[in-house]
Every structure is written in C-alpha cells, then in structure tokens.
C-alpha cells in the first residue's frame, strides 16, 4: 500500500497539472501530514513575525485556550468515528459546570465537585445515547434537540443572577496541577481505547461501513454507549476546566462549543462522518492550531473579527485540500 502510493507519485510525469495536484491531494500521507504541517507553519510563521511567541506566557495562553476545545474534541472522537454527530456537548458541559460549582459552594469539597461533574457528564451523554439507540432518533438530531434543551435548563438554573462564582484560589490551585494531569490522562485513555482495544477498531469499521459491521456481528448499541460514556467523561472533565478557567459559570458558558469542536476536529484532519481515516488526536491538533492562530494574529495586531475570517478561509482551504473531490455533489440525509 505504501509503495503503491510512492509509485503513483513517482510516475506522474505524463499527467496534467490538475491531475498531478489531485494525486498529491489524495495521497494518504499528505492527508495525515497536512494538519501537522499547518500547525508547524502557524508556529514557525508567528515565531518569526512576533517578538515573544515562544515565551511562557504566550504558550500558557495557547494551552489554556486549547485545552477546553481539545478535551471536548478528543471526547467526541469515538462518536464522530462511528459516523455520528453530537453538538450538545457544549451545553452539557455548562450543566456539568453549574452542578460542580453548586456542589463546591455547598460542600467546599474539590473531590466531590470533580466527581459530580464527571458523573453528570456521563449521565447526560448516556441520555443522548439512549435516545439514539433505544428510541431510534438519529444521533445528529438528538444532539441538536438536546443542545437546545440543555441550554434552556442552563438558563433556568442560572435564573436572574445569570452567573455562579467560585473561589479564585481554588481555581488557581487546580489550574496548575490537576488540569494538565487530568488532560494528559484523559487523552491517553482515549488514545489507548482507540488504538489498542477492539472498541476502537470496531468503531472505525462501523463508521466506514455500518452495514458490513453489523453483518460481521458488531453491536451498534454497545459501541455507541461506550463512545457516549467516554464522551461524557470528557464533557464532565471539561466542565471542571471551564469552571476553573473563569472561576464561575455564566449564561453563555458552552455556547457555540459544539460547532467550535466540530471545526477543530475537522481542521485536525478528521472526517466528521467517521470511518477508517478517523483518529483520536485530530481534535488536539485542530484545537492547538486554532489557539495558536488566534493568539498569533492578535499579537500582530489583527482584530478579533478579521481573525475569525482568516480562520474561516484557512479552514475551508484545509478541508478542500484534505478531502476527496466527489464526482457529484456531496450530500447526507441527517434526519
């Protein structure tokens, strides 16, 4: 397979320019390497054009910005790999933050705060999974409806105060020790499940061809539950990360997170429709790229609005370069 790709690339002399471009574009190594290359380009470019891009403050800022999106993106990787979508994770994360904040305020226990957030994350994602597997509603639809329901619950819980504030001291203490360790452990857990266990292999197979996977005896229900429970773990963890980052929860916590996670995942080189080309680290790469790009552009004096536009253009370019161009128009019935 590897030699076949190289042979193809070597024997391109007789091809037209557009065909040569297509061969390079569709090469699997180019597909895999492109997100890493983009991250490298962003880092090198801003390292060269700004004064202190590699300074501890900037790098910490990039990590702080990326860690929430990256954790959520890693947590949804199994769901995306199976060909499903769930954009309710941001609103679910906000509910986890609200519960965690209230538990901390009433008990003063950090351990209880973390456990309650993770437990709620798992419960919420299990509800989503049940609606999808037991009640047969498509996962994407469940995600959209539950996002609205969780957002409405968030607004009802926060009420007129519109925010809950927790101790800054507690947030600061968790930021330096707990957060990076929890993030690394969670990433390793997902990576191991994804690459070293039958769950990862079966999920990729299922995402690539659901009918063939079912014919081969793979259980859709169990795969989906495992994916959603792991996602719930990540959502609960991100609830804590979000809480300690801002020392509180507001009415806008989690807004647009599902979309941003989708964006980071796709930018990291993963198809949102799953299959064999999926991986567990795409979200991390995508989140780091977005955070580095945001920080770098702001450092060279570009306004927040323009940063967003540039991000959109780069996003579309990368997707175009990393996706196979179909003969007809791509479409998918989501509902």
């Amino acid at each position: 397979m590897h030699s076949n790709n190289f042979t193809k690339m070597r024997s391109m002399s007789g091809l037209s320019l557009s065909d040569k471009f297509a061969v390079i574009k569709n090469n699997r190594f180019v597909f895999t390497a492109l997100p890493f290359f983009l991250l490298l380009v962003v880092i090198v470019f801003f390292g060269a054009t700004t004064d202190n891009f590699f300074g501890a403050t900037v790098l910490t800022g990039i990590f702080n910005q990326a860690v929430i999106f990256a954790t959520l993106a890693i947590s949804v990787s199994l769901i995306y790999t199976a060909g499903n979508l769930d954009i309710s994770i941001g609103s679910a994360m906000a509910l986890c933050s609200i519960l965690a904040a209230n538990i901390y305020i009433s008990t003063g226990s950090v351990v209880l705060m973390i456990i309650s957030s993770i437990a709620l994350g798992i419960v919420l994602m299990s509800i989503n999974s049940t609606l999808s597997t037991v009640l047969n509603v498509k996962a994407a639809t469940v995600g959209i409806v539950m996002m609205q329901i969780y957002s409405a619950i968030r607004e009802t819980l926060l009420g007129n105060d519109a925010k809950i504030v927790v101790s800054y001291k507690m947030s600061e203490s968790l930021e330096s020790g707990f957060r990076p360790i929890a993030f690394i452990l969670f990433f390793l857990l997902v990576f191991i499940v994804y690459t070293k266990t039958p769950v990862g292999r079966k999920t990729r197979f299922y995402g690539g061809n659901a009918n063939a996977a079912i014919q081969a005896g793979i259980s859709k229900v169990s795969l989906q539950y495992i994916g959603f429970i792991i996602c719930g773990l990540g959502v609960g963890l991100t609830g804590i990360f979000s809480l300690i980052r801002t020392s509180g929860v507001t009415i806008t916590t989690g807004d647009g997170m599902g979309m941003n996670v989708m964006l980071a995942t796709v930018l990291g080189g993963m198809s949102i429709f799953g299959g064999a080309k999926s991986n567990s680290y795409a979200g991390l790469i995508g989140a780091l790229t977005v955070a580095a790009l945001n920080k770098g552009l702001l450092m060279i004096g570009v306004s927040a609005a323009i940063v967003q536009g540039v991000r959109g253009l780069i996003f579309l370019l990368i997707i175009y370069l990393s996706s196979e161009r179909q003969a007809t128009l791509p479409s998918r019935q989501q509902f």
Partner: protein
Amino acid sequence: MNNVAAKGHRAFYVKLKMLLQTVALPIVVYILMEILARTLSGKGVLSSSADVKNLLRTLILTFCFALALNANFPLGRMDLSAGAQLYMGCIIGGNIAIQLGLGGTGVLIFSMIVGSISGMVVGTAFVTLRILPMVLGLGMTLIFETISFSAFNQQGLMLYGKKGMDVLSDTGYILIFAAIMIIAVTYFFSFSTFGFRRKAIQGSQRLASDFGINIYWNCIQCYLIAGALFAASGVFKTAYQGALIPVLGMSSNGAVFTYMFPMMIGIWVGSFTNSPVLGIFIGSVSLSIFRIGLTKIGLDETWQSLVVFFLWLFFMVYRFNSPKIAYHKKRKARIAEAIIAEQELDAALAGKGA
C-alpha cells in the same frame, strides 16, 4: 357512469380528508392553548389586536426561515451558514436601502437581494469545492460573520425610529407578503422546471445528472432562493426587535436549530397534501400559536423553550418510530382479523356438526 361518479366522490373525500388533516394541527393547538390560557390565566390566546400582530410577526419570520431551510434540507444539504446569510443580507442590504432613503419595502428588497447573493456565494463554493455542506457552512459562517460584523462601523442594522419602517410591522403587509411567498415558492418548488429538476435530484442525484439535468446550477439556485428567504426572515425579525446586532463566534447559526422544528413539522404536515410549502406555513402558524399560548399561561422564555424543545424531542421520537408503530398496528389488526376468522370458522364447523 355510476362507477365514475363514485370514483370522483371518493377522490373528493380523500382530498377533503387530506386537507382537513393539514389544517387540523393549528386548530387543535389553538383550542388546546385557548382552554389552558383561559383556565390558568383567565385570558384568551388572541385576546387583543396586539396579540394578533405579535402572532403574525412571529409567524412571518418563522415561516420564511423554515421555508429557506427546506430549500436545501430535503436534498441532504444542511446549511449551517443560514444565520450568517441572514446577517449579511440584513446588515449590508438593509443599510444600503436606508442610505438610499428607501422605506421598509426597500429594506426588504435590498436585504433579499444581498441575501440571495450570499446564498449564491455559498452555493457556488459548494459546487466548486465539493466540501460536505455542514462543514462548508461552518467555514462560510466564519467568513460571513466577519464581513457583516465589520460592515457599517460594526453598527448592524437599526430599524427602530427610522422613517417608513412601520410597514414591516403592519398586519396587512405581513399577510400579503406571506401570501406572495406561499404562491411564489410553491410555484418555484412544485410547478416550475427548476422545481421538477429539484425533485428529480432529490430522488437520485446520479440519475438526474445522467438524465441531463444540471445538478450544479440547480443547487446554486436552491442556495440563492434560500439566501433571499433567510434575509426576509431577518428583516421581519429586526423590525420586531428594533435592531440587529452583529455577532461573531458562530452565534448566528443558533437560528438554524431554532427554526428546524417548524420546518420538520411543516414537512410532516405537508406530506398529507404533498405540499411542503403549505405544510411549513401550517407548522409555523401552529408553533407561533403555541408560543403565544405559553406566554399567556405565564411561562417565561426559558420555560417556553424547554416546553417547545421537549415537544420537538417527542415529535422526533414519534417520527423515527412511526414505521414501527404502523407495523405493530397492522400486525395487531391482522391478528384480530385472524382470530375473528378462526372464531367464525369454528362457529361454522360447530353449526355443521350440530
């Protein structure tokens, strides 16, 4: 001769039944909400002219947005840049019209023109890049939000207090616009060459293409019509709220998810008469009455949202399981028929034996 007349009568009754099924939903919703509102708050759902005006304002913006979503949705294209197209159309088109001193109709027309151009840009990008529609929608949202946010000194669109804008809140004007939209979009989607081709593509894109239909141009046309309708919805929304404040961070696509429910109800209701446009109108009317009813009961906006979205969830559970429910119903009926037949046979045999 009698046979022909009987067939004609049967066809008439079938059509009448379909029509009643279509219009039943808003009537049922209205009666239900009227009873609830009168019992719980002592007021009717539509107790004043202001209530009727509010209903029409909510209805028109819901109807236009849901109708626009329906342009691409049945073809497997979920356009997440819809909200951003609304902002583009309203902020750029609306402000140009205001600067030219045109009234409310001018704002509406210019917004729809810029909205359709935005839609055409998305459609052209889609057929050129062939990126999945949802993913393309995310990218286009980022770009369009940047443009609409930066345009006109980041002021968005302000209609409150501007001369000639009252017309956008006028009951008669809204009704006439809704009627024009129903007729025009029904013609485009159901009776024009574009509509026939769209239906063919909806059936099978590959077959339609092999048959000689230009699937790419048809797709751009769908996006173009959708863009104009998104902008129209935005203009009525702005007229209702007074101003449209520009947003960043993909906040604009929240509207896509909000108006998906009336569109889905509309498609379901429309299936009774094979008219999705009428269905979406009926769906929008029903939901608007439901919302006003909930306000009359005294629920605040967050509780209203909770009720509406739980209703959406139940609706989706029903829709996804309706084939199963129908299968079980038929099975039950078959078993009941078999039992009756068996009992009749037993009775006949017993009669013979006696």
